[in-house]
């Protein structure tokens, strides 16, 4: 990679790349996001390459970032026709190469089949999961090999930086970001431009910009997919931000569990440095900036700004009181702008296409798009990017394809452990920062965990409190002790030992925790409990008064039995039962001894006749 000393050289380099690029040339892209890697896509990729070599062809196989449709991985697209294959297995590879790549024949069996119409769909953009998406930030993921800066450059990468450096003042950049109405994608939803302005005005050197990639919300993985799949978009956003506020140093704080993100970001930073896009006098301008990577230690609370600073400084990640804002005294008490990596990836778009264009997307106070991870009890698990303001119904039933096995939707949990559970009656809610907050949840980083009638809302509340108790740093007593106490009460309720007044006590403790905690972890810790009480009070009452778990989840409140009509006496459940609770003769209906049964679920999993009842 040659070093580019001015914006002209960058444009020249991009033009050269485009000239060398032949749009008619065959190209096979394969999703190498975490989900597809879990399905074994790397072996499929190797097989594709081997087969191409065997058939003596000149075709590039490109492992790209996440395509988003994780449910149907491994995903492969054949260019230039853009034929979209899903659930590709190694044995499909010879046909893909000899038929589709060589002759352009489409393999029907690998196409996506719309369950509604039962018709196959050839192109990715026509699949219902993708159709209504607006993949501004996430769209390039499927085209780029994240280890090659050229792939980003050819798509116009770093042009926004060039535009900012050659024709805009720092103040101009800030006013553009303000006008665009960009709000923080990490959870808080604070206006990015206001933050930047505050930091620009603050005194102190050096100034810092930080990309928060400590994605801790369980069920949210869009930041991971961005850092892994399109690291340069985050880096370019941060460089523009640094120029705007006058920062000379930056950090990307990456979650410990994301080793691939660290590798790709490290490579991206190195190649950006080689290209003159990071380091001294970026693109020849009187502006120097560089980025380091800081690996987290696996603490959820480090997603909080002041805890994150402590962690980068090499200390335990305990938040501090924020009487003075981070924009004035952040990392090492210097002016610091911390934005989520998705927020940073939005910045190049705003600069290159303009604030007016950006502000035309979304709702009145929530502009642009948001990436959500649609997971849980949903047919189409994956990452979607939609304009703010889309309804939950469109997302869950339109893109998500509804609930598996025809079960009934119960709730969608948004905002991670700080958010809440939204019931069916609010499915027409337009998703944006403010609407979610109004119904007692929040945007968070964009996790949407769908739950069906077999999910117990008291159990879900207990789950989040267990999570928060584990992750509370322990500094503020109301959070440390209050969350523990709430968890104990919920455990009692789930164990059938709940008492009248427990729900009111939970509400009472919630107020104390929210008021008495320094950071957002404690401040919003009661949300999962309060929202489930608000919308699913009858489930709490069923546990407390009737000692019954309507969803059939809480072990102490349920019993297993075998339906003699359905049981064929095959004996599988006897074999798998760890406590010898099942008995019966071969070919005769079995029975379960409830004194021995631990409700582990092994019999349900093994039964092929759906004969185990849970009540």
């Amino acid at each position: 990679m040659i070093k580019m000393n001015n914006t002209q050289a960058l444009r020249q380099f991009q033009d050269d790349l485009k000239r060398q690029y032949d749009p008619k040339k065959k190209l096979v892209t394969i999703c190498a996001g975490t989900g597809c890697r879990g399905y074994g896509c790397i072996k499929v990729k190797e097989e594709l390459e081997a087969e191409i070599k065997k058939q003596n062809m000149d075709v590039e196989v490109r492992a790209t970032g996440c395509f988003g449709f994780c449910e149907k991985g491994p995903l492969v697209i054949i260019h230039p026709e853009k034929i979209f294959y899903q659930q590709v297995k190694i044995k499909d590879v010879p046909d893909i190469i000899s038929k589709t790549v060589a002759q352009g024949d489409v393999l029907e069996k690998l196409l996506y089949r719309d369950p509604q119409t039962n018709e196959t769909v050839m192109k990715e953009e026509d699949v219902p999961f993708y159709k209504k998406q607006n993949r501004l930030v996430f769209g390039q993921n499927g085209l780029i090999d994240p280890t090659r800066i050229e792939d980003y450059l050819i798509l116009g990468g770093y042009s926004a930086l060039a535009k900012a450096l050659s024709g805009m003042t720092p103040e101009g950049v800030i006013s553009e970001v303000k006008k665009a109405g960009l709000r923080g994608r990490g959870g808080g939803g604070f206006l990015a431009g206001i933050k930047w302005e505050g930091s620009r005005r603050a005194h102190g050197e050096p100034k810092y910009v930080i990309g928060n990639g400590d994605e801790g919300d369980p069920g949210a993985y869009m930041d991971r997919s961005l850092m892994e799949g399109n690291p340069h978009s985050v880096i370019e956003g941060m460089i523009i931000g640094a120029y705007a506020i006058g920062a000379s140093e930056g950090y990307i704080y990456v979650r410990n569990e994301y080793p691939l993100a660290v590798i790709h970001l490290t490579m991206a930073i190195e190649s950006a440095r080689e290209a003159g896009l990071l380091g001294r006098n970026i693109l020849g301008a009187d502006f120097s900036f560089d980025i380091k990577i800081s690996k987290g230690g696996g603490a959820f609370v480090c997603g909080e700004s002041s805890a994150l600073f402590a962690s980068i400084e090499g200390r335990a990640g305990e938040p501090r009181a924020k009487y003075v804002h981070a924009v004035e005294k952040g990392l090492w008490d210097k002016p610091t702008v911390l934005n989520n990596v998705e927020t940073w990836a939005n910045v190049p778009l705003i600069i290159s296409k303009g604030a007016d264009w950006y502000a035309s997307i979304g709702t009145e106070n929530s502009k642009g798009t948001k990436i959500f991870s649609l997971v849980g009890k949903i047919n189409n698990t994956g990452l979607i990017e939609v304009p703010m303001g889309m309804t939950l119904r469109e997302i869950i039933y339109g893109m998500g394809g509804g609930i598996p096995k025809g079960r009934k939707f119960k709730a969608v949990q948004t905002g991670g452990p700080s958010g809440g559970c939204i019931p069916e009656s609010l499915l027409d809610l337009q998703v944006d920062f403010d609407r979610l907050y109004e119904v007692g949840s929040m945007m968070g980083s964009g996790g949407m965990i769908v739950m069906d009638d077999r999910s117990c809302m008291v159990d879900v509340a207990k789950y989040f409190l267990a999570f928060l108790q584990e992750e509370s740093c322990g500094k503020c007593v109301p959070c440390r002790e209050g969350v523990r106490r709430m968890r104990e009460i919920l455990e009692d309720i789930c164990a059938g030992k709940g008492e009248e007044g427990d729900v009111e006590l939970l509400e009472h403790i919630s107020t104390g925790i929210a008021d008495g905690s320094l950071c957002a972890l404690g401040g919003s810790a009661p949300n999962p409990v309060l929202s489930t009480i608000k919308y699913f009070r009858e489930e709490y009452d069923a546990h407390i008064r009737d000692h019954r778990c309507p969803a059939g989840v809480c072990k102490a409140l349920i019993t297993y039995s075998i339906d003699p009509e359905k049981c064929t006496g095959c004996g599988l459940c006897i074999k798998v039962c760890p406590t010898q609770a099942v008995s019966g003769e071969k070919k005769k209906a079995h029975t379960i001894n409830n004194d021995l049964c631990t409700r582990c679920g092994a019999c349900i999993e093994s039964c092929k006749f759906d004969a185990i009842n849970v009540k």
Partner: protein
Amino acid sequence: MSKVSDIKLKTKQIVKKHKGDKSALIAVLQDIQEAFNYLPKEALITVGDAMGIPTSRVYEVATFYNAFSLNPRGEHIVKICVGTACHVRGASAILDKFERTLFIKPGETNQDQKFSLELVNCVGACALGPVVVIDTEYHGQMTMAKVDKIIGKLKEGAQ
């Protein structure tokens, strides 16, 4: 297990690599854990001495972050994802099954040092839920029946 002198030597090399920079404490500990699979007591003391940080603070950081283990870990690390998506898809039943099969609880290592059981809050592979990551390999759509098979295979491989 490594000898005390080896631990001290390796630790000093790691500290040197990070130029003794106090803010690199977490990175230093991460490197040590990578080298020894856990944080030996001698290493923590050496880190404190070599970096000029009180041992109490080194210990504070080592115990604050989930990524660090003060006990030797097994040959295979079994990480059960207990993210929300995996939870609603039955991760706790899978966890129970691992506990029953390996006779250990999360955070523990079994007697012959073959397996450690750990929990992780979401590995970002929710489509595969419930997910278990063993060493670096992802096992998706886990069932209790699969647990026996996987553990059986690993035990065979270990022999």
